[in-house]
């Protein structure tokens, strides 16, 4: 039977109702077999890798910020701010993510501190996004249930391109911050944030608003955009790397399935991108076992790769398959890239996948 109903991505819409009715919501998902002792070893927490990476991350930002201020007004400031922007507007995305899971550090307060800092930089309310990301893991790319689907069908490619510069996402973030700071929680937010947590959403929004107001006031007083180049604007001019890598997570792949091998993409990447992205290029592995810290994902990949589709060999290779899929989805939103499993893999959980005759890549 064809996917005859247009996808409704609203969290309280028709697709959401359908997912609740047909068992796609909060379903049981496929997991590769990993022996318990091996999984326990992979899940073990340590502070070392994340302290090292955080010192490099924030230390480099500090050095670049000082250099940017000293070089302000010369062309030498341009590469400095390009680098600063990526660390602010892109590395914060992966730090928000990993610390939100609570797996980056063993010590809880370190996770929480980096989580708050990263949330501010990426402009994601730490309370709202903790809950939205929980839903993303429960209902990954289930239409109407997952609030974090980056590219909906048919794809809005103009939106995708604008978000390489954070334009729409940051605009929405500012609007949400102002609304939350005014004490307003939307119906959609209320659909996944428990009532007892909502006052925290409002409190954080008000603190952030005060910080941005102070930064804008300083810029006006100095008659210079420099303070905003350090706080706020890097979310725009430094966003490109997190969008570049983030689109690959699920872009062009199946929706409404309960097997992360079908709807998530692992991509082999260069070491710089992996540092910025904190190994989230192993995205199938992360979704299947979110308890495994970022620094153990390469080991997990080696352990279960016999059961997974072959990873894309590079960012470029990922885009070479994803962009044509987006273009084809403009004409036919049911089109998707079907993942091929190695012969050593356990079979797909087919019951949802074979329910429709959506057009898969050959």
């Amino acid at each position, binding site marked *: 039977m064809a996917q005859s109903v247009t996808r409704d991505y609203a969290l309280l819409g028709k697709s959401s109702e359908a997912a609740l009715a047909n068992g796609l919501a*909060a379903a049981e998902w496929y997991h590769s077999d990993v022996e318990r002792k091996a999984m326990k070893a992979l899940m073990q*927490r340590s502070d070392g890798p994340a302290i090292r990476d955080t010192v490099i991350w924030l230390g480099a930002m500090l050095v670049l910020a000082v250099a940017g201020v000293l070089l302000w007004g010369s062309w030498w400031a341009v590469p400095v701010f390009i680098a600063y922007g990526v660390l602010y507007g892109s590395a914060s995305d992966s730090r928000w993510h990993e610390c939100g899971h*609570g797996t980056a550090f063993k010590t809880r307060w370190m996770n929480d501190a980096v989580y708050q800092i990263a949330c501010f930089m990426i402009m994601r309310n730490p*309370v709202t996004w903790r809950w939205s990301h*929980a839903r993303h*893991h429960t209902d990954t790319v289930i239409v109407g249930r997952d609030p974090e689907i980056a590219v909906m069908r048919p794809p809005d490619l103009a939106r995708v391109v604008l978000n390489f510069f954070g334009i729409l996402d940051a605009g929405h973030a500012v609007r949400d911050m102002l609304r939350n700071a005014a004490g307003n929680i939307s119906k959609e937010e209320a659909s996944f944030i428990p009532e007892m947590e909502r006052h925290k959403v409002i409190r954080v929004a008000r603190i952030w608003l005060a910080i941005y107001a102070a930064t804008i006031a300083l810029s006006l007083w100095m008659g210079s955009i420099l303070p905003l180049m350090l706080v706020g604007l890097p979310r725009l001019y430094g966003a490109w790397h997190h969008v570049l890598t983030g689109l690959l997570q699920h872009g062009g792949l199946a929706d409404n399935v309960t097997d992360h091998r079908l709807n998530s993409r692992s991509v082999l990447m260069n070491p710089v991108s992996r540092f910025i992205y904190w190994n989230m290029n192993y995205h199938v592995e992360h979704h299947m076992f*979110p*308890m495994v810290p970022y620094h153990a994902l390469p080991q997990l990949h080696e352990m279960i790769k016999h059961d997974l589709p072959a990873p894309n060999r590079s960012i470029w290779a990922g885009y070479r398959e994803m962009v044509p899929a987006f273009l084809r989805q403009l004409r036919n939103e049911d089109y998707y890239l079907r993942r091929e499993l190695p012969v050593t893999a356990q079979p797909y959980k087919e019951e949802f996948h074979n329910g429709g005759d959506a057009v898969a890549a050959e």
Partner: protein
Amino acid sequence: MVEWIEACGADDVDEEDVIRFDHAGKVFAIYRSPDDRYYATDGLCTHEQISLADGLVMDDIIECPKHNGRFNYKTGEAKGAPVCVNLRTYAVKLENGAVFIEV
């Protein structure tokens, strides 16, 4: 009516680990702490009913494998988002090398 049920052998649970025990349609989690004591709670996370036996035991904390929700398995206390509702705990005793829980 309260009764003691044999859940597992004492050696079935590794130190600082957890196993699942199913009984009468209910799921329990049996823990062995780093100081070699045994504890029992409901076996499913109060957030989204995921089996805690696939999670990670760290000191007196059990972390849910799906969303990283954390509970103190000795008291059942939910330690913060995304878990807000405490776990129910059960009395445990060791007899003849077996772990019994009071249900």
